[in-house]
């Protein structure tokens, strides 16, 4: 060893949207060895998310997308955590700047990504896309399970996903976009499972103490091989847990009333909102792991795997 270190600059990212999703992303990005947040952008400097960002020492701005248009060199990747209708307006502008975008909204614009499936072997499946859509929290929780079921049982006629989340974890953006949430999650389910008939339901529960996010996947199928199903589901759950540590099974696959039922719970890491907000965690963890894979792919074409890596 010559002692020369391979130096990697962290990927510069900006967060657009200072709501629950954006703020929680910031906390997670600050922990990432591969990402560095250069701008945290909202509309009001005194919003709770902005206050939190300031306390974390982030560079904040209340200029919205204008901040990025004014300083296009400051970031390589943008997380859009605003709303579906805002993303429709943001994307052409970001596209013109040639930026990579991870869209947290249910806008249906970009390529849908579920890390446990899309990043299974490597990033090549999604490398060519510059707008990656994270679908929804319910989508991230359910699609890997649905995908796994359809790998084993080819004759699934219908898949249904019900997610219950705590009211406190659903900010105004989630609430106003409830129809888009359903629409986008259904589309993601169809895309990754190949099942043509799907249905998505979202329930907000205000119970105190707050309930953890819970997702139930039901699949209508005749004579399933439950042993194989159980095995494969356990395997995919372990894969998801690699990037969402609080993802756990509550009811392992059971066959009831001509349907397979699987129920999972997602506890959050408690970064911005407390741990009940697993819905924030699962979509944000998925976005972070995707951004990190992208960063590695950009930078890490290492010719010497033994070289010590330093991130700056």
């Amino acid at each position: 060893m010559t002692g020369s270190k391979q130096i990697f600059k962290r990927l510069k990212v900006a967060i657009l949207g200072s709501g629950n999703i954006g703020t929680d992303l910031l906390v997670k990005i600050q922990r990432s060895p591969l990402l560095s947040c250069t701008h945290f952008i909202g509309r009001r400097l005194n919003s709770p998310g902005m206050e939190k960002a300031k306390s974390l020492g982030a560079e904040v701005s209340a200029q919205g997308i204008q901040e990025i248009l004014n300083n296009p060199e400051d970031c390589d990747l943008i997380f859009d955590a605003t709303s579906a209708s805002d993303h429709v307006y943001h994307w052409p502008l970001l596209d013109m700047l040639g930026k990579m975008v991870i869209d947290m909204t249910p806008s249906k614009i970009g390529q849908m990504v579920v890390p446990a499936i899309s990043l299974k072997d490597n990033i090549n499946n999604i490398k060519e896309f510059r707008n990656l859509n994270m679908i929804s929290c319910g989508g991230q929780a359910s699609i890997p399970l649905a995908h796994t079921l359809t790998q084993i049982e080819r004759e699934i006629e219908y898949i249904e996903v019900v997610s219950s989340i705590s009211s406190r974890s659903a900010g105004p953006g989630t609430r106003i976009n409830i129809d888009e949430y359903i629409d986008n999650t259904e589309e993601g389910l169809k895309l990754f499972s190949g099942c043509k008939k799907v249905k998505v339901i979202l329930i907000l529960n205000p119970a105190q103490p707050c309930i953890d996010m819970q997702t139930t996947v039901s699949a209508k199928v005749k004579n399933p091989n439950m042993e194989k199903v159980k095995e494969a589901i356990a395997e995919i759950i372990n894969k998801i847990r690699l990037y969402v540590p609080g993802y756990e099974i509550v009811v392992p696959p059971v066959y009831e009333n001509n349907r397979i039922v699987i129920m999972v719970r997602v506890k959050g890491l408690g970064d911005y909102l407390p741990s009940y907000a697993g819905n924030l965690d699962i979509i944000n963890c998925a976005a972070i792991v995707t951004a990190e894979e992208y960063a590695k792919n950009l930078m890490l074409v290492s010719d010497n795997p033994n070289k010590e890596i330093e991130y700056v």
Partner: protein
Amino acid sequence: MSNILIFDSTLRDGNHAVHHELNNKQIAVYAAAADTAEIPIVVVGHGNGLGASSLQVGESLINDMEMIETARAKLKKSKLGVFILPGFGTIKKNLKNAINAGVEVVCVSSHCTEADITQRHIEYVSEREKEVYGNLMMTHMVSKEILLEESLKMQSFGANGIILMDSAGAYLPKDVIEKITFLVTELKIPVGFHGHNNLGMAITNSILAVEAGATILDACARGFGAGAGNAQIEVLVAVLEKMGYTTGIDLYKMLDASDVAEKELIKVIPNIKPISIVSGLAGVFSGFAKHVERISLQYGIDSRDVFFELGRRKAVAGQEDLIVEVAVNLADKRIAVEKKC
């Protein structure tokens, strides 16, 4: 004496009682009878509203649009209504088509603390110049102040009225008087009540609501609805008439319509079974009853335990998937106890 606006939910809430299996012929025959009785608004559809047919809450025998078109063809004087719960139904998939098919009244509903998810749906109906009501469900769970806060949101979105639903049949007289009086005083728009009969209070509570200033009541023929059933519409109309209120409904024809319902729609006339009493006491959505019975039987556990556990966990309408989880837990606990013995 003032006029009371009656919503007939026989063809919507009644669907809960028959696993959402009302067919075209049944819908046609009852809609025709209700129209003859001049019931102002006839609501039709899956028990949980547009787009709700699912494994979660039960699959409809026929789809929403068929139900709407069938009822539409029979209603001349009565207005055609539907129910929608954001989170289940969407504007694009469901509401738009329903309105295009001639729906005139929409009840946009949410759990009693979540009115802001109804904003776009209420606005959508309002912009199309149809009547739209904000229905708050499971209203026994929160205080009158919270109900007001949520009702004010719906009022600001453009709702023509607010209907408090006693979805668990858990209200006692003092709850009705307190909550309705408060909302009637504070809101600019009419207030209504939808009563369930788990504790035998549906008619009494509905009448108390009117005396407290409510001007809308929602009820069903023979009480045809989930669990122990709803306020019985023909009784309600008769009592209101005796008290001097007007409803615009022809009482004789209403009584005839209720006979049609009994003969053509209802398998078992709703009555207060022990399971419904428990459901009312536990404050659990009446629509859970059939699912709880089936799943409890399958797992060999006491359905009453399931209801109390669901109540403890503050399950909201639509959260039927919790029943399986609770049942699995209770069954596991029982096995653990048996092993110890």
